[in-house]
C-alpha cells in the first residue's frame, strides 16, 4: 500500500501526466484506495444507516428490520413523544440541561486552572500538573459507592442536592472537571505567545483583563471543542446517572433510552432507534462542524469518553 506513497513525489510534479493516466494505472495508483475506502466507509456507517432506517419503519417491529429503507414513516417519532411512562422529551431536556450546565462550568473552571499552570510560576506547579494526569486516570465510577453514600447524606439536609436530584449529579460531574480538560487546555494556552500578555501587562491590564480579554478570546475555538467533548462525555455517561437518578421524569437519555431495550419482553426497537436518532443528530452535526478543531484537540491528548 505504501508503494504509491513513495512514488508519489516522482509523478505529481508533471500535472498533465495525471490527466493522461490510463484506467489500469489509475486503478493501481488510486482506484484500489477508493475501493478499500468505500468498504471502510460502509463498515463505519451501516449501523447508523440501520438505525435511521429502523426508526423510519412503520409498525412496531420488535427487533428491527433486515432490509434498509423499505418503508418510510414518521410514526415512531410521533409515538416517542406520546409515551407517558417514558417521557422522552423530558429526558431530552434533562440531558441537555445537565450537559450544558456542567460543560460550561467545568470548562470555565479548568480554563482558570490551565491559565494558572500555563502563565504563573508557583510552588507545587509541577506536582499539580502531575497529579492532574493521575486524576485523569481515576474514573469517577470507582468512587460510585462513596458518591452514593455522600448524596444520601447531603439529601438528608438538602434534598435538592441529594439522591435523585439533577443538581446533585451536576455537582458530581463538576467535581471531575479539573481532571478532564485542564491538561489539554494547558497545552493550548502554552501556544499563545507570552509576549501578548506581557505587552498588555505593561499597558496596565489586570490579570483578569488579560485572562478574559486576551487568552480566552484567542483560545475560544479550543474552549468550544472542549465544551463539546465535555458535553458528549457527560451526556454519554450511563453509570453515575443510573445510580443517582431513579424517578422516570428525572432520567437522562443514556439511562432512559435503555428502558426501551433492556426488558426482553417489552422492548421496543422502533422507539429506541427513533430516540437514538434524535439524541445523536445535534451532537453529530456539532462534531462535524467543529471537526477541524477537534482533530487538533485530539493531538493534544483528549480522549472522548
Amino acid at each position: 500500500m505504501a508503494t504509491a506513497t513513495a512514488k508519489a513525489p516522482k509523478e505529481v510534479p508533471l500535472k498533465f501526466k495525471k490527466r493522461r493516466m490510463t484506467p489500469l494505472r489509475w486503478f493501481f495508483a488510486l482506484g484500489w484506495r477508493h475501493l478499500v475506502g468505500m468498504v471502510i466507509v460502509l463498515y463505519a456507517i451501516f449501523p447508523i444507516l440501520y438505525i435511521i432506517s429502523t426508526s423510519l419503519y412503520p409498525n412496531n417491529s420488535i427487533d428491527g428490520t433486515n432490509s434498509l429503507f423499505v418503508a418510510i414513516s414518521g410514526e415512531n417519532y410521533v409515538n416517542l413523544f406520546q409515551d407517558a411512562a417514558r417521557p422522552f422529551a423530558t429526558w431530552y431536556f434533562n440531558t441537555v440541561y445537565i450537559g450544558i450546565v456542567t460543560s460550561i462550568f467545568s470548562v470555565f473552571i479548568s480554563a482558570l486552572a490551565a491559565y494558572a499552570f500555563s502563565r504563573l510560576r508557583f510552588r507545587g506547579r509541577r506536582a499539580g500538573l502531575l497529579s492532574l494526569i493521575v486524576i485523569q486516570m481515576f474514573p469517577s465510577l470507582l468512587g460510585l459507592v462513596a458518591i452514593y453514600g455522600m448524596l444520601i447524606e447531603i439529601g438528608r439536609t438538602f434534598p435538592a442536592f441529594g439522591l435523585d436530584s439533577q443538581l446533585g449529579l451536576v455537582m458530581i460531574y463538576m467535581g471531575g472537571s479539573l481532571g478532564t480538560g485542564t491538561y489539554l487546555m494547558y497545552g493550548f494556552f502554552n501556544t499563545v505567545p507570552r509576549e501578548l500578555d506581557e505587552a498588555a501587562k505593561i499597558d496596565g491590564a489586570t490579570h483578569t483583563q488579560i485572562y478574559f480579554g486576551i487568552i480566552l478570546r484567542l483560545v475560544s475555538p479550543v474552549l468550544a471543542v472542549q465544551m463539546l467533548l465535555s458535553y458528549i462525555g457527560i451526556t454519554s455517561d450511563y453509570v453515575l446517572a443510573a445510580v443517582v437518578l431513579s424517578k422516570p421524569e428525572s432520567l437522562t437519555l443514556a439511562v432512559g433510552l435503555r428502558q426501551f431495550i433492556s426488558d426482553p419482553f417489552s422492548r421496543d426497537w422502533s422507539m429506541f432507534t427513533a430516540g437514538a436518532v434524535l439524541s445523536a443528530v445535534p451532537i453529530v452535526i456539532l462534531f462535524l462542524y467543529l471537526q477541524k478543531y477537534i482533530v487538533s484537540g485530539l493531538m493534544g491528548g483528549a480522549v472522548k469518553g
Partner: protein
Amino acid sequence: MTNPFSGGLDASNVKRKSVKQLYDGGTPSLRGTIIKIVLLALLDAVTIFVAFVLFMREQWLPVAVAIIGMLIVNWLYLRRGGLPAKYLAPGVILLIAFQVYVLFFSAYTAFTNYGSYHNGDQNLAVSAIKAAGFGPVEGAPQYDVKLVQDDKGRYNFMLTDAFNGKVLVGGSAVPLTEIPACSQAISEVIATNATTVAEADCKIEILADNIAIAVSAPGYTEATQAGLSKGQTNSLAALRLYLDPNDTQGQFIKTEDLMVAVTNQEELIWNEEEKSFLRVTDGVVFNEAVDGYFRAGGAPDGEKVSDIGWRVEIGLKNFEKIFTDEDLRQPLLKIISWTFIFAALSVLTTFIAGLAIALLFNDDRMRGKRVYRALMILPYAFPAFLSAYVWRGLLDTDNGFVNNAILGGAEIPWLTEEFPARVAVLLVNLWLGFPYMFLITTGALQAIPAELTESATIDGATPWQILRQIKMPLLLVTIAPLLIASFAFNFNNFTLIYLLTEGGPLDSASSGYDAGGTDILITFVYKIAFSSGGGQDYGLASAFSILIFIIVATFSLISFRRTRTLEDVN
C-alpha cells in the same frame, strides 16, 4: 489611575511599579472589584445559609468545614497577590469535595464490611432484626382501637378490651398505660348491658349489643383517621406498644389496620443493656460478634441471628478475600487477564486500522478525502452509549441485522457465548475507536517532513523500510502518550462492556459473583457493588476499586515517564 504607584515620573519609580504590577497583575479596575465583591458576597450568603441549616441539625463537622472553607476563600480573593491560588481555587475546591473525599471514603469503605447486609449502625440493624419475626400470642386479649390525640396534638391509640373491661392508652411517646376510670366505665356498660351512656370524663360509645368502645378520656380527645397523612398512617401501623415499658418479655400490642389490635410475641427479644438478642423458642442468646453480626454466644463462628448486621471495620479482610478466596479466584483471574487482553487488543486493533487507513489516504492525488473523512468519523461522533445499544440490537443472534442480513442467516451467538461475545466486544470497540486513531495518525503523519521520505527514497529504501524505520518511530513519539491514555481508558471502559453485554454471558462456574465472559474488572466491581446475586458488598467493591486505581495509575505513570508528556511538565 488613582493607584499611588502610577504617580511619579522618575525612572526608579517606574521600574519598581512595573515589577510590582507584573507580579500583582496590574491595577484592579473598579468594575472587576465590584464583580469580585458581589460574587464573594453571594458565596458567603449561600455558605452561611448552608451552615445555618447544618447548625440546626447539629451537624457540627460540616458546619465547621463550611465556615472554614468560606473564610479561606474570602482570604484568598481579598488579599493582594497569590494569583495562582485565585485561579486554582474553584477547581481545587470541587476536586477536594467530590474526588479527594470520594477517594478517601472509598479507601475507608474498603476496610469495612459496608454492604446491603451491613448498611448502617447497630441500632439500625437491631430495629431491622426486631421488625422481622413476631407472631400473635394465643389467648391474649384483643383490643378495639380508637385514635385519640393528647394535649400536645400527638396521635395515640386508645385500646378497649370490652371482654375483660380494660382500657389502655399508648403511642410513640406515651408508654402503654391503663386508664382506670375508663376501665371501670366500660365494665359497667358491659355488665349492665346498657344502651345509653351517661356523659362522663371517659366517653364510651356503644356500637352494638355488648360491644362498646372508649373514645376519649381526660387529656385525650377523639381523632379520626381522615386527618392522617400516608406517612403518619404507616408509622402508626408499625408502632409497637410494649406491655412492659422496659421490654424484657418482647410482648407488644400492634394494630395493622388501626381498627383492631392484638398482642404479639417477638421471636427475638432485644436486651438493651447486654446488647443481645434472646430467641424465645429455644432460649439461645445472641451477642455482638466482631464481624458485625449477632452470633450465638458472640463466638466468631456462632450461628447468626439474622443475615442483617451492622457496619464495622474489618481491617484487611476484603483484600484478604480478593487474594485468597477460592470462589473468587477462578473468575477473578479470568477477568483480570481478559481486562488486559481487552485493553491491549483494543488499542492494537484500532491503532493498526487507523494507521492503515491513514496511509491509504495519505496520497495527495486522491480526491474526495474530505468526504471519506467526514463519513468515517461518524462512529466517533456518535454518542458511545447509543452505539453500544445499537450494536446490541445488531448482534442479536436470532433477529440481529448482522446475522440475518450481512451473514445471510448465520446463527452466531454473538452475545450469548463467551468467545463470540469477546470477539464482538472487540469488533464493536474497533468500530468505535478506529476513527479516533485514524484522525490522530493522519495528523502525526502529516507532521513528518516530506524531505525525510524523499531522501530515503533516493537512497533506495523500499516503502516498507520507510514506514518501519522512518515513519513509525517518528509517529510513535507523537502518539505514544495517546496510546497509553487509550489503554487506560479501555482498561476501564465500563460503558462499552456494560451496555453491550452487561459483562455476560454469565459464567455458571462463578458461584455467587455473577462474573461473565466479557466482564472487565470495572464492570465486575460494579456488579459486586450494585447488582450481585450474592448481595451488594460495597466494602469488597471499594477494595477492588483501590486496586484498580493503583494498577492504572502505576501503569500510566511509568508509561508517561518514558514519553514526551512528562518532559513537557518539566
